[in-house]
């Protein structure tokens, strides 16, 4: 049964790749060099409504590429988790290591992380939520959040711990909501991931339609994935 489902999956993937390859413009006669940069710079303000042009390209004009980046990151984080986390039959052996290995870092690191952690959270959330107005966005803010949480866990393993189930729930929720926002646009008769809602007042926090929501999803997903990756790297090595 597993073999057949794997075969079905692979044939579906091959079919998808063939369709995409057939649709590529380099195989059609009407192939022209890309001159979209100027057009985007001129039309982004009216078409997307984001004050940050980079965001309107990343999420508005090239939303599908962002989805691809997210899936690449997801694959990388999954592989690291698969390779580096403890396997279940070694749990008993490593349980003994856990007990004497979990001690807080020194005075300087503990106090520094206590001081800097709330600041990092605020900065990360600011970068994510203002991604459509100022430089930055979901990827950068997500990395800041991931580093903040994993630093806290690495420096004070006694007091702080991250629930891996919660991390996966946040990650899945963010990924699904990103795709759902794109699919809703399909149902409204527009193209996938096309920005919806009204543009709002140019330059205000509630502007640019669904772009802030998309960046929030990207930020949560990147943050959860990278935090999981860092904690998998930091977890105790399997002793055989």
């Amino acid at each position, binding site marked *: 049964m597993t073999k057949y489902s794997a075969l079905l999956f692979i044939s579906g993937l091959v079919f998808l790749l063939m369709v995409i390859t057939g649709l590529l413009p380099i195989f059609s006669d009407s192939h022209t060099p890309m001159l979209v940069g100027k057009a985007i710079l001129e039309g982004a303000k009216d078409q997307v409504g984001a004050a*940050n042009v980079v965001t309107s390209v990343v999420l508005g004009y090239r939303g599908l590429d962002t989805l691809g980046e997210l899936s690449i990151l997801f694959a990388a984080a999954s592989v690291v988790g698969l390779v580096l986390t403890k396997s279940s039959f070694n749990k008993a052996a490593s349980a003994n290591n856990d007990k004497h290995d979990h001690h807080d870092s020194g005075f300087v690191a503990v106090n520094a992380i206590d001081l800097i952690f709330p600041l990092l959270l605020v900065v990360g959330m600011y*970068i994510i939520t203002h991604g459509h107005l100022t*430089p930055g966005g979901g990827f*950068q803010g997500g*990395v800041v959040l*991931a580093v903040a949480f994993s*630093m806290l866990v690495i420096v004070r393993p006694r007091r702080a711990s991250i629930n891996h189930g919660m991390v996966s729930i946040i990650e899945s929720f963010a990924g699904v909501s990103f795709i759902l926002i794109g699919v809703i646009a399909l149902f409204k008769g527009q193209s996938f991931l096309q920005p919806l809602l009204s543009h709002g007042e140019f330059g205000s926090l509630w502007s640019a339609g669904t772009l802030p929501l998309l960046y929030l999803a990207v930020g949560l997903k990147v943050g959860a994935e*990278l935090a999981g990756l*860092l904690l998998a*790297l930091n977890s105790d090595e399997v002793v055989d």
Partner: protein
Amino acid sequence: MIWVVTVVVFIMLAAALAVLFLPNMIAAVVASAVVSLCLTVIFAVLKAPDVAMTEAAIGAGLSSLILAIGLKRLGYWKTDSIDKVKAGERHD
């Protein structure tokens, strides 16, 4: 502005060479973070603030943390130089 860039480029080159020649592994990780920070300044000068933020967050923050965790896993998280660490391993 050209002087800022010149100074930053020289700091960057020095830090990149320091990564290769520093005997202490922790110092080498810090030097690689310095390379990323200098690159951030250059991106900001080139009016690419988005790229600069990505470089600061990923290049200076995340990759240094990954390198540091890697050092810890490999047992090189020592303030001694790498030769001393290896010599100590040989004595064991």
